[in-house]
C-alpha cells in the first residue's frame, strides 16, 4: 500500500479530484494548507504598507492506494494540476504498513 500526498494550487483541486476518480481512485482526504516551496510569496498593499505574504494557500490531497495504482494516480494528478509555472506543487509517495476499516475491522488492501 502506498500513500500519495499531493500539494496543489487550490484552484486545481476540482480538476485533480475528477482525474483521480476517473483513474478509479475513490477515497481521498483533502486538507487546506499554507506553504511555499521555491515560489516564495507575493506582496500585498494595505494603506501604503507593503506586506510580504510568503505562506500561500494550498490544498493537500491524501490518498492511500494499492501499489499497482501508483503510476496511474501520479499521472492523473500531474496532468490535471500542471500549469508549467512555479508553484504547481509537489507529490510525495510513501509506504503504508497497515490500513483498518473502523466499521468492521477489515485490514490491509481490502480496507482501502
Amino acid at each position, binding site marked *: 500500500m502506498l500513500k500519495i500526498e499531493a500539494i496543489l494550487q487550490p484552484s486545481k483541486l476540482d480538476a485533480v479530484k475528477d482525474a483521480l476518480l476517473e483513474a478509479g481512485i475513490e477515497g481521498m482526504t483533502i486538507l487546506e494548507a499554507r506553504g511555499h516551496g521555491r515560489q516564495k510569496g507575493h506582496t500585498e*498593499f*494595505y*494603506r*501604503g*504598507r*507593503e506586506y510580504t505574504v510568503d505562506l500561500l494557500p494550498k490544498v493537500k490531497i491524501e490518498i492511500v492506494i494499492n501499489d499497482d495504482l501508483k503510476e496511474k494516480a501520479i499521472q492523473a494528478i500531474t496532468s490535471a494540476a500542471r500549469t508549467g509555472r512555479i508553484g504547481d506543487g509537489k507529490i510525495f509517495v510513501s509506504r503504508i504498513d497497515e490500513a483498518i476499516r473502523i466499521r468492521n475491522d477489515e485490514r490491509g488492501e481490502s480496507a482501502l
Partner: protein
Amino acid sequence: MPFRRLRLFLLAVACGLPTLCLAQSSAATTSSQAPATQAQIAALQQSVQSAQMSADNAWMLVSAALVLLMTGPGLALFYGGLVRRKNILGTMMQSFAMMGLVTILWAIAGYSLAFGHGNLFIGGFEHLFLRGVGLTPNPDYAATIPEQTYMVYQLMFAIITPALITGAFAERMKFSAMAAFLSLWSLFVYSPMAHMVWGVGGLLNANGGHIPSLDFAGGTVVHVTSGVSALVTALYLGKRLGYPHTNMPPHSMVLSFIGACLLWVGWFGFNAGSALNSGPLATSAFINTHFAAAAAALGWTIAEWIHNGKPTALGAISGAVAGLVAITPASGFVQPFAALFIGLVAGAFCSFMVFEVKSRLRYDDSLDAFGVHGAGGTLGALLTGLFATRAINAAFGKDVPTGAIDGHWGQILNQAAGVAIAWGISIVGTLVLLFLVDKVIGLRLSPEDEMAGLDLSQHGEEGYDLNS
C-alpha cells in the same frame, strides 16, 4: 305746545332708535366677524407650523438614526475588518460600548454641558438629567423640531466621536480602561468643544461667538477632536507588539467595505441633518457630502496608484471616508464644485498622511484615526473658510460675506483659531485623562493578553468559531 314737541321728540326717537339699533347691530356684526378671521389665521398659522414641525421632525429623526448607523454597524465593521481576526469582537465592542455609555452620560450631564447656557467654554447645569428638555422646540438651536429630537440627534454625534478614537489604540487597550477613558473624554473634551462651537454663548459660535468659526456638522467638534486625541493616545500607549516588523494586515476587507459604505450612507444624516430642518440647506449639504466622498475616493486611489502601482479597495474606501470627514465642516456652506475640490484634495492629502507621515514618524495609529479624521478634519475646517459662501448659507447675515470666496479672508483665520482650540483641548484633555486612567486601571493589555487577542482575553469569546 309742549305735547306736540314731545310727540315730535318721541317720533324722532322712534325713527332714530331703529337706526341706532341698526348701527349698533352692524357694529356688533363686524366686531364678531373680526375675531373669527383672526382665529382662522391663528389656526392656519398653527397648522402651517405643525406641518413644518412634522416635516422637519421626520427628517431629523431619520437623520439621528442614520448617524447611529454610522457607529453601529458602520464604524464597527469598518474598524473590525481592519484588525486581525483575534481582535474583531473586541474592536466592534469598543464602538458598541459607546452606544451604551455615551447615551447614559449624555442624558445625565453631557447634553447640559454641551448645550446648556454656561460660559464661553462649557455649558451650564440647567439641563442635568434632561431637565427642561421637552417636546417643544428650543429656538436657541432648532425652532421647528422638539428639543428632544435635537437632543437625541446631537447624542448620536457624541457617540460616534469617541468611537472614532478607538482606531488609534486598536488591538492593545483593556476594555475597562477604554470604557473609563472614553466616558471621561466624552464629558471633558467632547461636551466643551461642542459647546464652544455650537452652544449658545460659545467662544467659537458662528452666531455671536468671539471667534465666529464655521463648522456645519462637526469638522472640528467631531473629527479634529477625535483624530488628534487618537494621535495622542497612539503615542502615549506605544506600538502594538511586533509593530512594524510583523505583518498585521486587515483580516477582512469585505467587512471594512460594508462598513465604509454604511458610513457613506449614514453621513447623509450627519451632514444634511445638520441643517436641522428639511429645507434647501439640507439638500445642499446632502449633495456636497456625496460629491466630496466620490472625489476623495478618486483622489486617494489616484495617489495610491501612482505611489504603489495598484488601486486598492482599501484605498478607495479610506479615501471616501477622508472626503466625508473633510466636507463635514463645509457641507452647509459651500457650492457643489467646491465640495468636489475639497474631496479630491482631502483624498490625496490624507493618503499622504497615512503613507508617508505615519511611516516617517513611526507612530502606530493602527487604523489611521489621525491620518483620516485628524488630518481630514483640519484640512476641511480650513478649506471651509476659503469656500464658504453666503450664496449657500448666509451664516453671518444676508449681506455679510461668509468665507474668503466672498471676500472675507479673515474667516480663514477664524477657522484656524477653531482648529487650534480643538487641537489644544484634545491634546491636553486626552493626556490628562490617559494619565489618570493609566494610574487607576492601567491602559495596556499584558503582553500575553495582547498576543491572545482582545476577543479571548477581554470578552472570553471568539468572533469566528469555525468548529462549532
